[in-house]
């Protein structure tokens, strides 16, 4: 305990704080980009899966295979797989881009499932009614289905965002300079692990707790309506 108190001033030097905050930014950016891309692509996949035309059957099968596969591979394994594929393909050296690509691939698979279940929560009669009004498929989605579905989509999509803030901790394994890696670096510099990992845990908590609250608030708001 005495050691911790002795170390505290040198640990909380301005450079260490900047270092940790920057790493926190990287963590946030990783999950934010992943979720934004995942949300747009995932919505697209979910919409294609909802189509009925016989021409698009192969596409629908591909989407099912994609979502099933990427929801069943651990983040660590897919990260390493993408890392090595990029290495032999000589695509890029940037670890950040590799991590982003992996996050996007997985987020797309997960969020497309969330969006799909949201779309399915809207009853079939709504689709039929829109068809009877001679709405096109696009108009049906835009005017009828999404205004009702996004209340079901938003809360789980938000908790998924938090899940991804936590999962990006694994990106430290390929050496992306995010929060967990920063913790490892400081630990290797000789600071006490209790201090370092305790701080990292608290920083993660600071990052995801407001989002968690906000998600719960949204959930309550839409549940009562």
């Amino acid at each position, binding site marked *: 305990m005495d050691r911790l108190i002795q170390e505290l001033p040198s640990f909380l030097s301005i450079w260490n704080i900047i270092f940790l905050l920057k790493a926190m930014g990287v963590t946030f950016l990783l999950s934010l980009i992943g979720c934004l891309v995942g949300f747009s692509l995932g919505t697209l996949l979910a919409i294609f899966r909802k189509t009925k035309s016989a021409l698009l059957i192969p596409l629908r099968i591909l989407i*099912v295979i994609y*979502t*099933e*596969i990427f*929801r*069943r*591979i*651990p*983040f*660590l*394994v*897919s990260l*390493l*797989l993408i890392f*090595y*594929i990029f*290495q*032999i*393909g000589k695509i890029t050296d940037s670890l950040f881009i590799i991590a982003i690509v992996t996050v996007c691939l997985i987020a797309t698979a997960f969020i497309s*499932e969330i969006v*799909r279940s949201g779309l399915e929560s809207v009853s079939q009669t709504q689709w039929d009614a829109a068809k009877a009004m001679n709405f096109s498929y696009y108009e049906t989605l835009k005017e009828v289905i999404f205004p009702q579905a996004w209340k079901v989509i938003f809360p789980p999509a938000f908790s998924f965002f*938090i899940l991804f*803030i*936590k*999962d990006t*901790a*694994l990106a*430290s*394994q390929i050496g992306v300079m995010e929060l*967990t890696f920063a*913790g490892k670096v400081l*630990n290797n510099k000789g600071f*006490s*692990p*209790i201090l370092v*990992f*305790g701080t*990292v*845990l608290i920083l*993660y*908590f600071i990052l*995801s*707790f407001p989002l*968690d609250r906000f998600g719960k608030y949204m959930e309550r708001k839409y549940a009562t309506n």
Partner: protein
Amino acid sequence: MGYTLIYSQVTEYIPYLLAGAWISLQIVILAFSAGMFFGLILASIRTFGNLTLRRTVIFYVTFFTNTPQLVQIYFLFFALPEIGILLSPFVAVLIGMTLNAAAYMCEIQRAGFLSIRQNELDAARTMSFSIVQQVRFVILPHIMKVLFPPLSNHYILMTLGTSMAAIFGVEELTGRAFNINAETFRSVEIFSITALVYIIITFIATLLLAIIGKYFFKAKIRIIQ
């Protein structure tokens, strides 16, 4: 120089890899059952305890669901030796996963508690059911129907989470993939096989859970989403 995939160099390691999958399975089953047990205790305290106890449980759940499991295990593995508690990698991972699972299971099981309606219990009491009969015929069938889908979903997520153990040197599925990678340098081959094994074991798990859910608890789980 291009890279050619040579799977024949890694085929001899497949039995070794599958034995690792067995260890992953042991970790997830142990952590899942322990997490469910502690989650039940926490959920009971959260529902029936006094204010201080309830607040403690809420704090525990918020903290563990808002920080990454990886950093929690880092803390257990690297920080606890500072105060004289030395954990083996396997035990550290198991404790970390259990603590994390207990927080999630508390939330899931609390939702189950809330789904029991008072008038059902009243009806059972009117029929002069004993406490055991009430639990066996009224509470359990109802609760399990609500709980089974999210619990089995969490089981799959935990299976994916076990890959974290590799980082601490546990020789489970991913850990053995690391070993083989270090021996053969056939990275893409070995990690794609590992990913395939994960897909297969989670798929079998979903299949079994769907069958159990259907015949014992009348809970519906979709095998392919």
